[in-house]
């Protein structure tokens, strides 16, 4: 197993951990962390693949991913804080006024 | 003179104009509608004078409507193409007459008159438009255009269960029109216009669809293809129109809609909207898919016979006068199917005749039911007896309508049914499309028809006078009701005594209809 293979598996692990967190955790902040993990998995891929290839596309794209991650975190935390304010909770299950009404 | 466009668009324009008049001028609306009807009548009379019965399509107007290039598959062409021939001209005349009667009959509508008459005018334009349109897309648009006005007319001004009835009506008819739409899309993608020979122009023109050489070789509905797609297309299109007709398994919307609709709308529904089903079969289904017509002929005739018998039996069992009339419509439209299925000149002419005569007679029948309902708000047959002694004029009209409807010689209904039976019995030896037992069974329908009408007369009008309704001030006919019933009664008699009046229009069409069939090279003589 080369370094590249190894790092790809690491990235898969990070991505799946992120997905697992998103899927199982009930806390909005933890879900946000899971999303950050997924983005980092992608970044790791980009950097690793970039090493094998000409140009700097991968690294540059990774920079944009970081930019996007920052923006998401800023907006997301603002939104989550507001939900905390209204519901005193950030557990999506408990935050549920919007539901299907049964006739 | 663009006679047909005037007929179609005067009511639509008047409807838009109506919307601009403030609702408080409640008396203006029926007068405007009546004016439009009168204008249409004048235009129609002028057309009758110019119409030469032997010439096929007349008063044609053709304008480009949609013309699009569709890169890979040529060009799409839809036109504003209207014209009338021996099939549609009598039906247009019927529409003009019935809409006039319907306006008079709705004179006393009490609430939201503005909306009512505006919708009535839109309906008017759409009905005449669908009888005149020879472009399939145009026809489809007019056809769908009728749905919403009908929905609201039944749903707002109807009886106690109006909401259920209007939604059922809408869903059924929309389902039918979806089936028509499927075939329409398949057809126009398979047909090219012969006008520009060297390029592919997909056209909605029904006249082009009727010529098998216009089907693009290798397309899905190509007449020479061996697949069963054309039969499928026939079946879908037929069911689409059979829902409207309505033929028996698809008829269940009709009794509800009729019973709940206000009188004028019942009249329009029975006299005109059902005819669009029959018209569609004669105009679109049979000429475009003659092969399917041959293949399915015994099915079509069978559905017709089942409708005749089932409708008559249900009418016999009905306790509600309006429901009885509604089921009698199912029965009578079954005759139309039987006539069409025979594909003989007599049968087709009879089917058209039956459509016109049923238009007149069913209008009368629903008006009669409406007259009684206006007075007592009760339509149960068992609650009346001996009405003849109190409402002499009314009873006279009832007798005319009932006898005309059950097919007594001397009335319009007789001519149509006789022609249909001629055709149906002849078909056995002539082209073998309709098995002999079917018209034999259908005669049973005539007997049942006589039975339910005579029994109703006996129950309601003869015997000792008694009315078991809460309100019973049984005045005889008013002048307005006379004005509605008299023209219809005269027409029913006139067309019964002088069938040539109508047959002059119908026969040339029926002859070309069956004639082109044989020229298509389809062997109807196995």
């Amino acid at each position, binding site marked *: 197993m080369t370094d590249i293979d190894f790092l790809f598996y690491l990235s898969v692990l990070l991505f*799946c951990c992120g997905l697992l967190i998103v899927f*199982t955790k009930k806390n909005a902040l933890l879900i946000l962390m899971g999303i950050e993990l997924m983005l980092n998995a992608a970044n790791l891929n980009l950097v690793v693949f970039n090493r094998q290839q000409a140009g700097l596309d991968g690294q540059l794209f990774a920079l944009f991913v970081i930019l996007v991650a920052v923006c998401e975190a800023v907006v997301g935390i603002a939104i989550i804080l507001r939900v905390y304010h209204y519901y005193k909770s950030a557990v999506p299950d408990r935050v549920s006024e919007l539901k299907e009404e049964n006739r | 003179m663009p006679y047909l466009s005037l007929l179609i668009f005067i009511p639509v324009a008047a409807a838009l104009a109506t919307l601009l008049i403030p609702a408080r001028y409640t008396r203006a609306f029926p007068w405007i509608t009546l004016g439009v009807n009168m204008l249409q009548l004048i235009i129609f009379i002028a057309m009758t004078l110019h119409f030469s019965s032997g010439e096929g399509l007349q008063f044609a107007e053709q304008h480009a409507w949609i013309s699009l290039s569709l890169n890979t598959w040529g060009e799409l062409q839809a036109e504003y193409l209207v014209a009338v021939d021996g099939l549609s001209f009598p039906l247009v005349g019927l529409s003009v007459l019935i809409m006039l009667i319907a306006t008079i009959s709705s004179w006393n509508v009490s609430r939201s008159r503005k909306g009512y008459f505006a919708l009535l005018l839109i309906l008017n334009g759409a009905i005449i438009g669908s009888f005149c349109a020879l472009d399939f897309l145009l026809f489809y648009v007019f056809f769908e255009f009728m749905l919403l006005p009908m929905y609201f007319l039944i749903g707002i001004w109807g009886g106690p269960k109006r909401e259920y009835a209007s939604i059922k009506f809408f869903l059924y008819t929309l389902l039918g029109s979806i089936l028509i739409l499927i075939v329409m899309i398949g057809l126009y993608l398979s047909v090219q216009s012969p006008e520009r020979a060297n390029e592919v122009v997909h056209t909605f023109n029904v006249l082009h669809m009727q010529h098998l050489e216009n089907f693009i070789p290798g397309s899905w509905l190509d007449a020479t293809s061996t697949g069963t797609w054309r039969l499928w297309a026939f079946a879908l299109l037929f069911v689409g129109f059979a829902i409207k007709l309505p033929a028996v398994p698809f008829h269940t919307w009709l009794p509800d809609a009729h019973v709940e609709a206000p009188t004028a709308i019942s009249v329009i529904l029975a006299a005109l909207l059902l005819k669009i089903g029959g018209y569609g079969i004669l105009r679109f289904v049979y000429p475009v898919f003659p092969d399917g017509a041959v293949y399915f002929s015994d099915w079509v005739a069978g559905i017709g016979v089942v409708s005749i018998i089932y409708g008559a039996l249900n009418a016999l069992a009905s306790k509600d006068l309006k429901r009885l009339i509604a089921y009698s419509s199912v029965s009578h439209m079954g005759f139309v199917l039987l006539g069409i299925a025979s594909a003989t000149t007599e049968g087709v002419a009879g089917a058209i005749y039956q459509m016109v005569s049923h238009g007149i007679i069913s209008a009368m029948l629903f008006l009669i039911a409406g007259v009684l309902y206006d007075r007592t708000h009760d339509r149960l047959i068992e609650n009346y007896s001996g009405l003849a002694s109190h409402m002499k004029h009314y009873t006279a009209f009832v007798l005319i309508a009932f006898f005309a409807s059950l097919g007594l010689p001397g009335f319009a209904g007789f001519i149509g049914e006789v022609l249909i039976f001629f055709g149906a019995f002849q078909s056995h030896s002539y082209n073998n499309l309709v098995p002999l037992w079917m018209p034999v069974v259908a005669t049973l329908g005539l007997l049942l028809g006589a039975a339910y009408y005579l029994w109703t007369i006996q129950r309601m009008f003869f015997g000792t006078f008694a009315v078991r309704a809460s309100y019973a001030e049984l005045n005889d006919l008013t002048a307005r009701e006379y004005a509605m019933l008299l023209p219809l009664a005269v027409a029913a008699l006139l067309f019964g005594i002088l069938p040539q009046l109508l047959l002059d229009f119908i026969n040339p069409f029926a002859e070309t209809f069956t004639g082109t069939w044989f020229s298509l090279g389809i062997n109807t003589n196995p």
Partner: protein
Amino acid sequence: MMEQAVLYILAGVAAASAIAIVFVRHVFYAALMLLACLLALAGIYGIMQAGFLAITQVLIYAGGVLVLIVFAIVVTNRVAGKSLQVESQHRFAGFLIAAAIARVLAWGYHQTEFLVNNHSQIGKELKPLGETLFTSYAAPFEIGGVLLLVCLVGAAFTASSFKKSAHD
């Protein structure tokens, strides 16, 4: 060899901390684990000749995003007024789905020829990175500027509206 050993250690740290986040029962510890993971990744970036990215990762991600998250944890703790325990749901299904996706990705990786360009060892320094950023990537760079601006305005507004209504 030394480099490779460091790489494996860093990768191990990253993997371990990522897995730890799944199992940890306290939000604050989760944040710490995430920090460890991010720093380990920054190290890997450095070894993979992406120095600028490594620095950005430390400064922006670890220094910015994570601080924000910790701030949010502190604030929500105060508002909620109760412990920061984390509950989980659908654990089993989650594991299954994650494992399935991992399996698909690994399987796909095995039968994929990833592009390898032999002239790859040149031009991974800072200068060409900056140059490319301002030439080939000028458009996304500028859009990114607008994105950042709008997000800050929006987030500030969202947070302030919350404060406003908090006084009601």
